[in-house]
C-alpha cells in the first residue's frame, strides 16, 4: 500500500513576509509606588527611555492578572514587561511576591503557548532606580527588535 508523505502544514502568514513591520509595541505594567516613580525619575534625569514603550500604571504589580498579559500578546504586543517593587518594599506587603509567583509560572507557560519566552519579562525597579529602568527597557526593546528582524 502506498502512503503519502506528511501533509505540509499551512504556514501562517508572518509579519516579516514582504511587509514593512510597523513600530514595535511594548506594553509595560509599572507599579505605582516603585517602578512608575523610577520611570518618572528616569524622565526627569533625562535618561533615554524607548518611545516604543506603552506604560500602564497600576497600583500594584500584584494586580496584573495573567489573562491581561496574554491579552496584550493577543492584541499584538511584541513584548510585555511587568515591573515591580523589590521584595520587602511592596506598599501592600506582598503584592510583588504574588506577582513574582505568577510570573514564574507564566514564564514557563508562555513558550508552551508558542510565544518566545524572551517576550515576557518580570523585573524589579525601585523608585530610586531610574538608571536601571532606562537600561532594562532599552535592553528589552532592543531584544524585541532583534527577534522580529
Amino acid at each position, binding site marked *: 500500500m502506498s502512503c503519502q508523505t506528511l501533509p505540509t502544514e499551512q504556514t501562517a502568514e508572518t509579519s516579516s513576509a514582504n511587509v514593512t513591520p510597523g513600530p514595535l509595541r511594548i506594553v509595560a505594567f509599572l507599579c505605582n509606588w516603585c517602578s512608575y516613580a523610577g520611570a518618572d525619575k528616569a524622565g526627569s534625569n533625562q535618561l533615554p527611555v524607548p518611545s516604543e514603550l506603552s506604560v500602564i500604571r497600576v497600583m500594584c504589580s500584584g494586580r496584573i492578572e495573567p*489573562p491581561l498579559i496574554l491579552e496584550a500578546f*493577543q492584541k499584538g504586543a511584541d513584548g510585555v514587561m511587568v515591573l515591580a517593587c523589590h*521584595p*520587602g518594599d*511592596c506598599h501592600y506587603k*506582598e503584592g510583588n511576591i504574588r506577582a513574582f509567583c505568577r510570573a*514564574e*509560572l*507564566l514564564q514557563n507557560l508562555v513558550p508552551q503557548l508558542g510565544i518566545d519566552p524572551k517576550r515576557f519579562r518580570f523585573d524589579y525597579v525601585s523608585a530610586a532606580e531610574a538608571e536601571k529602568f532606562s537600561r532594562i527597557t532599552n535592553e528589552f526593546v532592543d531584544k524585541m527588535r532583534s527577534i522580529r528582524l
Partner: protein
Amino acid sequence: MTTQKPKLAMYWAASCGGCEVSLANIHEAILEVDAHFDFMFCPCLLDTKKKDIEALPDGDIFLTLFNGALRTEENLEMATLLRRKSRLFVAFGSCAATGGIPALANHHGIADVLETAFCSVPSIDNPERLIPGTTCQVPDGELELPAFLTRVLALHEAVPVDYTMPGCPPESEQIIAVVRHVASGAPLPPSGAQIGCTDRAVCDECPREKRTTLASRLIRPFEALPEPGWCLVEQGFLCVGSSTRGGCVALCPTANMPCTGCYGSLDQSADPGATALATLVAAVDPGSAVGVDETALLAGLKDALSGVADPLGTFYRYSLSETVVADRAKEVE
C-alpha cells in the same frame, strides 16, 4: 415508522465515546428519553446514516447533542450539517465546549502529532514511516481521508451553538435533568447559556473542609497522600476546582483526586488557563519578604512553585482551543 415525537440526535466528532457512555449511564431513564423523543441519530448506538440526516428538512431535529472537538474536515462537515438540521444545537462535553483533550494537540504542529502517533510512540512498529495522507492509491483506485484542520477547534468556533453543556463527560444526572427540562416544555434558558452545570465553583459542592491556610508549596499527586477531609488546594495539590464551574458534585475531590477543570472556566470572559493559574498561585503562601535575603526568598518561592511541572497541561487541560493566543503564529515549539 414515522413518529410525531421531537427528534433527538447525538453525534461524536473528535471524542472518546465517554459522552455516549455517560448518556447510557442514565440507565432506565433512557426509557423516559424514548417516551419524549424520537432518538433517531447516534453513530455509537444507532444505525442511521449521514444520508438519512441529509434527507431531513432543515431544522427538523429538535435537539442535537454534539460531542467532540473539530479535528478533521469531516468533523467540520458533520457539525455544519447537524447545525443546519437542528433547532437546538448543544455543544455537549468539554471537547465540543472548549476543545477538551484533543485540543492539547494544538500545543504541537500537525507534523509533530502525526510523527508521534504513527512513528515514535513505543507501541508503534512502522519502520517505513508510513503516515496516512488525504489520498492513497490502492489497486482498486484512489482512497480519500478527510484532512486535518490547521488546529483543533471547539464547536462554537465553527458553527453557532445554542447551548453549552460542559463536563468530561457531562454527569448523567445533569443529562437527564436537561432532557426532562426540554421535554417538559418549560421555558428554555437564554441562547448561549451554559446548561447542566452551576454558576458556582466546584468548591461550592466540595465536601472537603477549608481551614483558611495557605499552602507552603504546590505538589503533584504522586508526591503525597492527601489528608482526608481537608481542602486539596490548602494541602498544595494542583486542584483547579476554585476556578472551575460546578455541577459535577465535586466527584473527583471527594475521591481524593484534585479537580482537573473539566466543567470549564467560571469566568467566560478571560483566558481560561491564565485565570486558573492566577487562582491556584494565590493559594501559595508568599511568606514574609521583610528582612529576608532577596535571592534566598525567590529561590524558595521558585521551589514552592516547582510542583507545576507542566503549566499548559495543568491549566488548559480541557480548554486549549479557547486560549486568547490560539491564533497567534507559533514562534517556539
